[in-house]
């Protein structure tokens, strides 16, 4: 469901009015390519599928996740502070035609798995988004 709705938004060209903090992080990502598709894995710990906003528009893939603070930074005195918590955002250019209707996304254990089928391949199977 996630992929369908967010992709529709992207195709309609609308922009989300969500409050966007000035600071954000980029995810660690893996990108795999097979003959049929690109698969993007993006680590977004702390996000839920509702927090994700994924858009693909004319070769640009945009990944965004809104992350809620898990502690009140005003009231928490950290003994160790090795990472910060903020929204994730990054963009990629994909230099190949993508079958936008066939894009699917799955989010599990804080990892987004996004499948972008290449449009040159006919009769691609549409993969439903699994939410867990």
């Amino acid at each position, binding site marked *: 469901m996630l992929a369908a709705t967010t992709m529709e938004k992207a195709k309609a060209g609308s922009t989300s009015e969500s409050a966007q903090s000035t*600071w954000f992080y*980029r995810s660690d990502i893996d990108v795999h390519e097979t003959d049929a598709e690109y698969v993007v894995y993006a680590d977004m710990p*702390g*996000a839920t599928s509702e927090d994700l906003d994924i858009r693909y528009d004319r070769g640009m893939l945009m990944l965004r996740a809104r992350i809620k603070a898990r502690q009140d930074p005003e009231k928490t005195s950290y003994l160790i502070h090795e*990472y910060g918590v903020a929204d994730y955002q990054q963009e990629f250019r994909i230099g190949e035609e993508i079958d936008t209707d066939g894009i699917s996304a799955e989010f599990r254990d804080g990892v987004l798995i996004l499948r972008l089928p290449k449009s040159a391949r006919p009769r691609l199977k549409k993969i439903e988004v699994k939410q867990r």
Partner: protein
Amino acid sequence: MIGDGVRQRGGYQKEVHIMLTPTNALTGLRREVDRLFEDYFGDGGSFLSARRYPPVNAWEDDEHLYVEAEIPGIAMKDLEVYVRDNQLTIKGTRPEGEIGEGVCYRQERPTGDFSRTLDLPVEVDASNVDAKLEHGVLTVTMAKSRNAVAKRIPIRSE
């Protein structure tokens, strides 16, 4: 990769356009192997030690000590959390991606075994520890030992 713990979180970034260019997946794997040995033999384990995997945040309140770690892509069954001798150990395996017949263009996500041990700054009750893994975030809540909890002394006003 795994172990260096320095997350690629550059802070303010705008319009990051990345062209996908092939990288050698084997180089990444080799680094993993080296890293594993280093972790196995070299973990200092100090509560304030240099960055290790997973990165953690820790804080406390009057009665509890909290340690949170971002470990995406792992199931609870692949994660072990121990409290022993007033040390917290977080241990597990991040699975390898399935590339199959394909090509790996980028590999930033750490994979493989990890283990990190933290010396806890206050005495905790090892029988009263709660660990929760939610959306790739591990939160360990440890109750402080009775003698570690600061007693608040009421002040009489006369």
